[in-house]
């Protein structure tokens, strides 16, 4: 005879509304980070232009766009690294080293094709990136420590090589210096080119297995390993690419400023990380896009420009970046925690 079963646990009405509520919330949150940047940007521009119409004249817009190009490029490489739950702090030093070494080629080898100079910059950056990549992928040391060290090693090498010298604009071919200045319909060619590169980067990260693997690795490193993804190889590649991009960015830096000494690129890593995080790339990896990061770079440049136009001292820049970075990290964490705890509570309640 069948045993008398005790009453089933209470039939609890499902709460589909709440469940889709939190799912929708999660999606909304992640879309917000990026469309949010656009909104913030628009609002910011509008407010500043209202106070100071000069902000929106074409010369200023061009200036902001050009100013952004180097950072947007750096943001592309940095995003790949951060998505995989790492960080590359050496990019500023790579920019500096590449800027000097590549542009001094013009003086040493007059008539050298500009393309070759760019390739040289790329090569220098690639070498640095490979060094970073090997140490992070094979060693069990946080990428922050490794790239903090290479930040200083590469800067030191730069100082040793450069000493008190500098590359001056006169030694650079005018075609090279024109690169940032060329415009089409009022928009700098360079900005368009960078936008295209960012688009390519975004496409790669979306459409190729190696790109998606980076997201998986950042989202859940243990699960990635268990799933058999080549974690070491992917992380190495991300650092190598970040370095190569920084190398190219260095050459562009040289074209933009014309005068390159041993201080080129100092402090850029912090701005790039700020731009990336503000642009919606989670500091713990797994989500975010290069487009968002580029927009973050644009936002930061816009803020700098706005401060200048409004007559506020540019000395406020760094404090603002720092504050924004903290805000972005804190928001990121709080949102994730809220989501997780809301899920956990609901899950056990249904048990």
């Amino acid at each position, binding site marked *: 005879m069948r045993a008398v079963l005790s009453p089933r646990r209470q039939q609890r009405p499902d709460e589909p509304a709440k469940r889709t509520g939190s799912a929708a919330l999660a999606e909304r949150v992640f879309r917000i980070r990026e469309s949010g940047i656009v909104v913030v940007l628009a609002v910011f521009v509008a407010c500043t232009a209202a106070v100071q119409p000069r902000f929106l004249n074409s010369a200023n817009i061009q200036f902001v766009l050009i100013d952004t190009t180097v950072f947007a490029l750096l943001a592309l490489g940095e995003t790949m690294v951060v998505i995989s739950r790492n960080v590359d702090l050496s990019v500023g030093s790579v920019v500096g080293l590449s800027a000097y070494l590549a542009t001094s080629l013009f003086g040493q080898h007059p008539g050298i094709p500009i393309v070759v100079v760019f390739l040289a910059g790329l090569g220098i950056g690639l070498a640095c990136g490979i060094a970073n990549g090997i140490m992070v992928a*094979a060693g*069990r040391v946080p990428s922050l420590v490794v790239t903090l060290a290479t930040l200083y090693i590469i800067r030191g090498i730069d100082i040793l090589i450069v000493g008190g010298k500098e590359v001056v604009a006169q030694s650079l071919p005018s075609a090279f210096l024109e690169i940032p200045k060329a415009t089409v319909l009022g928009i700098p060619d360079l900005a368009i080119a960078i936008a295209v590169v960012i688009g390519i980067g975004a496409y790669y990260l979306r459409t190729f297995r190696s790109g998606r693997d980076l997201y998986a690795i950042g989202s859940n490193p243990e699960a990635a390993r268990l799933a058999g993804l080549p974690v070491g190889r992917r992380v190495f590649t991300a650092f190598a690419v970040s370095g190569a991009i920084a190398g190219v960015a260095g050459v562009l830096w040289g074209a933009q400023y014309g005068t390159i000494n041993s201080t080129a690129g100092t402090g850029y890593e912090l701005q790039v990380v700020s731009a990336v995080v503000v642009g919606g790339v989670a500091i713990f990896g797994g989500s975010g896009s290069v487009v968002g990061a580029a927009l973050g770079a644009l936002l930061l440049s816009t803020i700098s420009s706005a401060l200048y136009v409004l007559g506020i001292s540019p000395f406020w820049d*760094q*404090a603002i970046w720092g504050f924004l970075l903290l805000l972005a990290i804190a928001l990121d964490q709080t949102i994730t925690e809220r989501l997780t705890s809301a899920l956990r509570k609901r899950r056990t309640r249904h048990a």
Partner: protein
Amino acid sequence: MPSLRGRPLPDLLRPALRWETGLAVVVILILVIGSAASPDFLTGNNLFNLGLSNGEVAIMVLPMTLIIISGEIDLSVASILGMASALLGVLWNKHWPMPAIFVVVAIVGLAAGAVNGLLVTRLRLPSLAVTIGTLALYRGIATILLGPNTVSDFPTAYTNLGVNAVPFTGNDLTYSTLIFIVLAIIFGIVLHATPFGRSIYAMGASPEAAQFAGIRVKRIKTILFMLSGLICSLAGVLWTFRLDTAVQNNGLGLELNVVAIVLLAGVSIFGGKGSIIGVVLGVLAFAGIQNALLLTNFNQEATGIVTGALLLASVFLPNAGRFVRRLTRT
């Protein structure tokens, strides 16, 4: 068998045996090579200069050690130094009395550390990320305070603290070195012999077990960050007096040196391990290397190479065997 306080000596020495011994050998090597390379190396005068140029960094190393042992990190130390320096300059310009300035600077240092501590313990943000942010924020505040200006007219009574030797000790001891020695002794006792120090090791080695043993992890970590803030402010004051200059980029980049020394000292980046003896040796090794570079006319601004290389060595060497194996496998 000789013993100290009921403990056989070999047992006492065992934890110190491995990394610190190697480090002591390195220090001795540096002394030997240095004095061979240059007759000035071991003179009192040179030691004095060593104290001058490394005193503030050495002082900042001490609270950083506790923070890293507890499982966190503070990259904003140099920015707090800069902020304290800027504050000192700005308030002095406004003709505040120096004692009042000291109080304000101390409070601001504590507050800066408290912000770090609260963000890490209450919002549960990783200290790595937080202190990168505050590194920028505090340096930014220093920049806002001073702008492009420098303040250089501090009274000699105070700037002498930066450049003169401590009276009655011969001519070789800087105030910063003295402060370092005193603090090192205090920190050493606290870390190695008090419940507070033991708790720091526990929470670094095993955060959950520490909590389950009733250790107030959040409170202690916040205290450590505040302590760091206070001491870095002190370092900022010393730095400003030594150079007789308050400028926004005072101490720029020093956080790397501080972290490098702590890791060089055998303190594990993952927390739970390390000793003050190692830290003192690390400071000596680092200062010795800097000095050797100086005496051999190595470009001072490029010493970052050496610091960075030391940093890498100190984190990879302990895992050297594992590292090579993984390289050859992948």
